[in-house]
């Protein structure tokens, strides 16, 4: 980071910036932009963000308040592009507002898994010995527990709500992060450049922060990106089971679950929220996949 | 030396078509080898030695690789025109290959027996029992003690040197006429390297096959080869008898190579290093590829790519220094 700070202090150096940015991440970005699939993924994610931010502008109706029972189950029309649901609410508007929730799910759930998992995995990997043993046994136990049941139980404990579903999905994701981080830390720890930092008298904390962790980031970031997709799916699954978002919340899983009764008579009610979930998850998967390829050390040379 | 060459490579070009450009890995290689002869190919890493060998075997992955030009004549027949099936019956049978890294060149999940029997049965119509007997015979030949009981072992249960012996036994299983050894000793320790080189020499004497020995170690070349081809950036730069090459190296790259290695016999104060880096094969300099690193480079060298010529009988060089006046010596 220091290099960047230097750079900001001294704006004259900015001329050299392009050189600097030919870093690993810079390379990765250009590689992602070159790959068709990950570019599509990136576009979907950007679209999702734009839709979420501009939801009040984009949505033709209010997702909860507008609509009345009289207009229920209207098929797609000029007025309601994607039709209306069981309470006569505009499905398009609900999907648009649902984008906000999806982002929230992605950020919170993956955030929890990321922070807790990285911490546990990092500690286990870096300290080793019995600490490693204890942490990894706990992780083993969590892994032996069917994840969706773990999430369900957690929601049952915490109470049914979207937030709790996100927390549950996040906790369920912890073992994966912990394992990845641990194994990466273990392998990085043994790398010669870490040894050479030690041989140069660099202090332990700095070794961890500057030498070990930054080099663990690639697989973690990839995992995080891919996890966003999974988290959205899992949260939607919980909502579908009635354990996630509640009531009138325009969450896509809830929309699916609520619309399910009309499967035969008004299939659009479940078709579009399902497509929305699919598209967003696909976006994150495509992007994560591209990111993985772009950051693959074997491709670096 | 009056024999017909068993294998002749003519003007071979193998290119890799990658996203970032065309890699001209082999760019006009020609040589020949006679039965019973050992031909050395030396050159730096990335100079195209392995790709040359793989092209002969037609093992280049397509895409991205492609043999774009040239002929590979084995007993007068162009291998590049053979069908895949015909080629398979030649590989491992009449021409076989030993690779650099014995640690990774054997399939870790199969026993040595399976890997050997499989090869024998691919090319010979024999029963499994006969194939096993043959395998034992081969392992004996390469000097693996208590061969029969070791057949059931997996590769990881052997040491590096033994694995390389197994590789050689595998390559020999169908009495090949040409054995291509791609840096067979580079990954090994000197004492083990000595064992393997000794073994190869002995086997050649006993079985009389032609060996193409790829290496970057001039020492190995001097010890085992009859003739040598020096490669640089995908092109042959010098080709002659081994004594001739060591006594009268012609190409400046060969000179550099020779003075780069520290010699025990006469300790130099300072090594004559070749300056600079090998060129990027996607973007070769104009003219002679070696010119940018060549101490003797003339202006012309940066413009004209010299031809590979037999300036002296049985001694080919690719260098402008010899195009007009032949008198330059070391």
């Amino acid at each position: 980071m220091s290099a960047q700070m230097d750079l900001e202090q001294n704006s004259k150096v900015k001329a050299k910036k392009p050189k600097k940015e030919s870093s690993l991440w810079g390379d990765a970005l250009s590689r992602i932009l070159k790959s068709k699939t990950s570019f599509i993924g990136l576009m979907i994610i950007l679209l999702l963000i734009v839709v979420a931010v501009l939801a009040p502008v984009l949505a033709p109706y209010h997702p909860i308040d507008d609509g009345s029972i009289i207009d229920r189950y209207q098929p797609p029309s000029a007025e309601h592009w994607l039709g209306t649901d069981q309470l006569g609410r505009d499905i398009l508007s609900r999907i648009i507002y649902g984008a906000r929730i999806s982002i929230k799910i992605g950020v919170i759930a993956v955030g929890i898994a990321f922070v807790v998992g990285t911490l546990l995995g990092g500690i286990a990997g870096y300290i080793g010995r019995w600490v490693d043993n204890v942490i990894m046994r706990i992780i083993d136990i969590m892994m032996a527990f069917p994840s969706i049941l773990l999430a369900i139980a957690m929601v049952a404990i915490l109470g049914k709500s979207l937030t709790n579903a996100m927390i549950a999905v996040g906790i369920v994701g912890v073992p994966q992060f912990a394992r990845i981080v641990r194994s990466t830390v273990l392998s990085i720890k043994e790398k010669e450049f870490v040894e050479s930092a030690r041989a140069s008298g660099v202090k332990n904390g700095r070794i961890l922060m500057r030498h070990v962790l930054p080099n663990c980031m690639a697989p973690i970031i990839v995992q995080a990106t891919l996890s966003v997709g999974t988290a959205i799916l899992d949260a939607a699954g919980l909502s579908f089971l009635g354990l996630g978002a509640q009531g009138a919340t325009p969450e896509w899983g809830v929309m699916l679950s609520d619309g399910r009764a009309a499967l035969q008579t008004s299939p659009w009610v479940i078709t579009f929220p399902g497509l929305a979930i699919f598209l967003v998850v696909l976006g994150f998967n495509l992007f994560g996949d591209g990111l993985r390829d772009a950051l693959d050390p074997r491709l670096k040379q | 030396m009056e024999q017909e060459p068993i294998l002749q490579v003519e003007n071979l070009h193998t290119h890799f078509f990658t996203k970032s450009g065309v890699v001209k890995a082999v760019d006009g290689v020609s040589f020949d080898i006679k039965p019973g002869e050992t031909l050395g190919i030396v050159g730096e890493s990335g100079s195209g030695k392995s790709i040359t060998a793989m092209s002969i075997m037609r093992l280049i992955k397509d895409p991205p690789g492609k043999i774009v030009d040239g002929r590979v004549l084995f007993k007068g027949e162009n291998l590049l025109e053979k069908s895949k099936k015909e080629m398979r019956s030649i590989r491992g049978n009449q021409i076989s290959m030993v690779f650099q890294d014995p640690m990774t060149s054997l399939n870790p999940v199969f026993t040595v027996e399976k890997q050997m029997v499989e090869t024998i049965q691919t090319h010979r119509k024999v029963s499994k029992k006969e194939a096993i007997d043959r395998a034992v015979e081969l392992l004996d030949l390469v000097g693996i003690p208590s061969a029969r009981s070791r057949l059931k072992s997996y590769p990881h249960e052997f040491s590096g040197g033994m694995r390389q012996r197994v590789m050689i036994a595998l390559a020999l299983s169908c009495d090949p006429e040409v054995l291509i050894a791609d840096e067979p000793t580079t990954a090994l320790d000197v004492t083990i390297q000595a064992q393997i080189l000794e073994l190869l020499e002995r086997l050649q004497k006993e079985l009389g096959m032609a060996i193409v020995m790829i290496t970057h170690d001039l020492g190995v070349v001097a010890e085992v080869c009859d003739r040598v081809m020096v490669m640089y950036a995908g092109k042959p730069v010098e080709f002659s008898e081994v004594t001739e090459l060591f006594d009268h190296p012609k190409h400046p790259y060969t000179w550099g190579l020779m003075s780069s290695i520290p010699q025990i016999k006469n300790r130099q104060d300072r090594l004559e290093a070749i300056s600079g880096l090998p060129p990027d094969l996607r973007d070769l300099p104009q003219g002679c590829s070696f010119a940018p690193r060549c101490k003797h480079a003339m202006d012309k060298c940066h413009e004209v790519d010299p031809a590979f010529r037999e300036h002296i009988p049985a001694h080919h060089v690719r260098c402008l220094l010899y195009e007009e006046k032949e008198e330059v010596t070391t």
Partner: protein
Amino acid sequence: MSNLLEVKNLKKHFPIKKGAIFPKQVGAVKAVDGVSFHVRKGETLGLVGESGCGKSTTGRAILNLIQPSEGEVIYKGEDISHYKGEKLRKLRQDIQIIFQDPYASLNPRMTVEQIIAEPMRAFGTPKKEREEKIDYLLDVVGLSSYHKHRYPHEFSGGQRQRIGIARALTLDPELIICDEPVSALDVSIQAQVINLMEDLQKEFDLTFIFIAHDLSVVHHISDRVAVMYLGEIVEVGEVEELYANPKHPYTQALLSAIPEADPHLKRDRMVLEGDLPSPSNPPAGCKFHTRCPFAEEICRTEHPELKDVSTGDHQAACHLVKEVVGSNG
């Protein structure tokens, strides 16, 4: 000449553990098993031996990158093998290391500048001084200062090795342990790096421990050479003396195994049978007896000690070589 470093009976045994819940030690890899030697100021000591014989472990144990199991490492008269914490860190200014793998030994997330600055930063060199020094060192190792904002993956192996060397030089060390610094490089590049190292040694008055398995390189660069076999030093001596007059059968075999780049030379190789035994279960007596063509009964039972074998500075550990008394140190 004075001894800058003296290693006495250095041992490093890696425990072999079994059991996942309650691991217990069931054996040890005796990677380094009683190594003693000394290095004089300003000289280059070559350390050769086959793969896995414990060369790197010795180097790391000297630096205390791995804690030695036993023995003393006396640097400038002080045993540094038990240094810990800040004391050990301070020592880093004096002894540095260069690694074999130019790809793995540079942090891929740091620019060249940061990499070279890292040791100075650790010892609190002011920024200005750091920058000057970086430019200077880059120049010294033959790189340009415009390289300093680049990342390691943008360099070739030889260039990376130069960066590694520059980093090792930042703290003005006295002793540099070079762990096979050229074996991953191509011959033509190898020569460049060797030349560079020789130049630097003169310029900065450095002492090198030069680990390699290439006997010709060691011959070229070293003043004295120690030959290792299975965690022990079997022979050590002045380079010319040792190469011209190897006493230990292993050294002899090693030397005769080097292919000489001279087609006219047709000699009898002394080819050793078999492979290096496992360091977790080394042979009793002389560890070399299993491969030694001259092994006798005593070799199987008694462990030979290093003893003077010629009037020069030349010792070997072999029962079959006569001790020569009256040499010097």
